[in-house]
């Protein structure tokens, strides 16, 4: 082992796809202490190689596929891994977190991370078995051009032939959308997608159809007995928690549709409204009552939030909230069966459902307003299956839609209703009724992402009921939540494990005196939270009941980790991402939302129903220690040990 720490395999390799060579990448224990793994590790590796002149579709662009120290160690929901690269949607550094089994098997092959540079001279797929790296032709093997499931099945057969027998394995593949450089193409691991920011298109440009990996390396944790005992307790806690043990397993993320409707947060008709009259036709309850076959989950996940539905007699993955919202109310579609089908088709083609649906909604509105005669209209949904295929193969109108809403609005006009931030389309949460989420969308490192933005909707009506229109304390909560989620992702865990942070009674007793007091107090906690954000190391404590992550980390890895240090590591990762992006020109001017969300009240009778972005942005930059242009200062970079 090349590391003194548990959880890690101690090896990172860099593969030059052009030269078909493999070399060891230096990654020391000092790096592990500062940059942990997953997304933060990816950002550090890209930071060390990018100057700011690289383009997403160029040989200089790298793909970092990284695991976290807890990936595969038996901690709850710890089957995650991360893909970092330059995004073709945004033009700067991005990351996409994914479940499935790839991360686990990458570690079984003895690897913490893979770095891919250069470009395959011909269509290729990569077969990895421990230290054997085999480059195979994706054309000769009949993989190039196949849809995702077909690719996975064929690749599995070929890999077994290569390995001389059946083995457990993990796979990453792209579909036709990635091959044809659709800017929002995804990469799939099993049925889970690294869906956002177009990482699939970067695979496609590099002529890499996919990766199949296996190995027989053993996992080592620092303290096996305590690690196992702690994880058992943690599993029990999550199973008893009202959200992770009841709500999410039974309704999935789709359960939020009704709640968002009631809060005016359900993006409707391309974010024109926050409520959809026909929401009951496409909500989580209808999905659970009439279509869900069984709940599914990723590796070692007690939550099992994924749905499973029937499409054409096949049991396939059901839609998440974002897909229901944007392919439902977003385009004024009330047919849930169509959404189930489209969700499956988009996965098979290898496309991000969020960006695809939002681009479609933009195009419908552009047509409605006479800016672009494209034949699309809200509520007219009969031909969409064909259109999705046309996007994936870049045919006719599909070739234009493959560019995403930002580029289309630059060509046809209507920037005020092209609903993206930094080129990445927003998820289904309408931020004019959750202004903290609006701030998060705008400042998020990877563009309009609800999770990277801090997910403040959880305070603003989808869990707790803090005033969703006030800007007080929103910047500080955004920073804290972003940092916590950054670190959870970096360790290799699913963000849903963080929901245990909210004591159950706050969720099950929303009308109780304690909950009402907490909701009322949150906007006044800004300065207290600022102290935590500025001096997190003062929190030299564990909060084991609601935040078992720090103890689990210590038992698995053997690295001292307090709650405060956990926050600081997340802060380092978040600012590091931003620091790399500033090399590509990112600054305050990019932390914006379309004017529909900042200038046009959702409710014409309520001028407050819009996002007061500029005020919150200033507070956010101050809390982060970034300058007024949104760039991390030298002092902040040194404080976080990003610069020595």
């Amino acid at each position, binding site marked *: 082992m090349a590391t003194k720490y548990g959880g890690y395999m101690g090896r990172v390799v860099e593969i030059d796809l052009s030269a078909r060579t493999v070399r060891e990448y230096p990654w020391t224990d000092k790096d592990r202490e500062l940059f942990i793994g997953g997304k933060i590790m990816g950002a550090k590796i890209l930071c060390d190689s990018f100057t700011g002149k690289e383009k997403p579709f160029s040989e200089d662009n790298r793909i970092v596929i990284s695991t976290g120290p807890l990936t595969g160690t038996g901690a709850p929901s710890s089957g995650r891994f991360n893909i970092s690269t330059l995004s073709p949607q945004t033009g700067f550094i991005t990351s996409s977190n994914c479940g499935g089994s790839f991360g686990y098997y990458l570690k079984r092959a003895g690897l913490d991370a893979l770095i891919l540079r250069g470009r395959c001279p011909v269509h290729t797929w990569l077969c990895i078995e421990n230290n054997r790296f085999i480059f195979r032709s994706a054309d000769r093997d009949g993989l190039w051009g196949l849809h995702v499931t077909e690719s996975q099945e064929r690749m599995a057969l070929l890999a077994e032939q290569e390995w001389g027998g059946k083995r457990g394995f993990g796979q990453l593949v792209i579909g036709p959308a990635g091959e044809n450089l659709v800017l929002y193409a995804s990469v799939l691991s099993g049925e889970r997608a690294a869906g956002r920011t177009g990482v699939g298109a970067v695979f496609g440009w590099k002529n890499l159809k996919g990766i199949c990996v296996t190995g027989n390396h053993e996992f080592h944790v620092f303290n096996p007995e305590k690690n196992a005992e702690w994880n058992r307790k943690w599993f029990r806690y999550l199973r008893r928690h009202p959200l992770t043990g009841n709500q999410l397993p039974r309704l999935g993320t789709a359960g939020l549709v009704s709640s968002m409707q009631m809060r005016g947060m359900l993006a409707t008709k391309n974010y024109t409204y926050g409520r959809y009259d026909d929401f009951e036709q496409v909500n989580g309850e209808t999905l659970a*009552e009439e279509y869900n076959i069984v709940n599914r989950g990723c590796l070692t996940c007690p939550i099992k939030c994924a749905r499973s539905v029937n499409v054409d007699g096949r049991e396939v993955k059901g839609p998440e909230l974002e897909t229901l919202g944007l392919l439902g109310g977003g385009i004024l579609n009330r047919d849930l069966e169509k959404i189930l089908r489209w969700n499956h088709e988009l996965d098979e083609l290898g496309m991000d459902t969020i960006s695809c649906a939002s681009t479609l909604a933009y195009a419908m509105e552009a047509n409605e307003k006479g800016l672009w005669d494209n034949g699309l209209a809200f509520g007219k949904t009969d031909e969409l299956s064909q259109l999705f295929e046309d996007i994936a193969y870049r045919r006719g109108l599909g070739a234009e839609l493959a560019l995403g809403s930002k580029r289309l609005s630059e060509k046809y006009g209507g920037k005020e209703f092209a609903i993206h931030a930094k080129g990445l389309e927003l998820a289904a949460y309408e931020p004019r009724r959750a202004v903290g989420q609006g701030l998060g969308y705008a400042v998020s490192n990877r563009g309009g992402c609800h999770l990277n933005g801090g997910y403040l*909707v959880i305070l603003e009506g989808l*869990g707790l009921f803090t005033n969703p229109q006030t800007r007080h304390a929103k910047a500080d909560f955004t920073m804290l939540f972003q940092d916590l989620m950054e670190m959870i992702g970096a360790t290799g865990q699913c963000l849903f494990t963080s*929901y245990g942070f909210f004591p159950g009674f706050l969720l099950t007793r929303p009308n109780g005196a304690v909950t009402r007091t907490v909701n009322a107090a949150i906007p006044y906690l800004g300065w207290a939270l600022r102290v935590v954000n500025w001096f997190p190391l003062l929190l030299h404590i564990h909060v084991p009941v609601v935040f078992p992550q720090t103890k689990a980390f210590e038992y698995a890895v053997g690295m001292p980790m307090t709650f405060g240090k956990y926050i600081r590591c997340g802060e380092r990762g978040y600012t590091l991402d931003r620091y790399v992006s500033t090399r590509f020109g990112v600054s305050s001017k990019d932390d914006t939302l379309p004017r529909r969300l900042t200038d046009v009240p959702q409710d014409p009778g309520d001028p407050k129903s819009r996002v007061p972005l500029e005020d919150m942005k200033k507070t956010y930059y101050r809390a982060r220690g970034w300058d007024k242009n949104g760039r991390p200062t030298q002092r902040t970079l040194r404080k976080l040990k990003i610069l020595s």
Partner: protein
Amino acid sequence: MVHVRLFGLFRLDSGLKELYAEVESVKELYPILLAEARKRRPETTVTARDIDGCVVLVNGKQSKKSARLCDGDEVMLMSPVCGG
């Protein structure tokens, strides 16, 4: 007559999607909902506590369970959720 619509886990547990009732406050709905749930699904385990844990919206606005209701009001009851 008040129109009551149910969402979230309470709806899954009770099998009730909606009902109409003659009541003057949200609290008066509790026994009616419980009786209807048990009639619809005898094996149901829902209790008054489950209803009490629901978020209450009257005509789209969050309300207290003591809120007075008028003829034609729409009441939405929903178990609180988060996480996407």
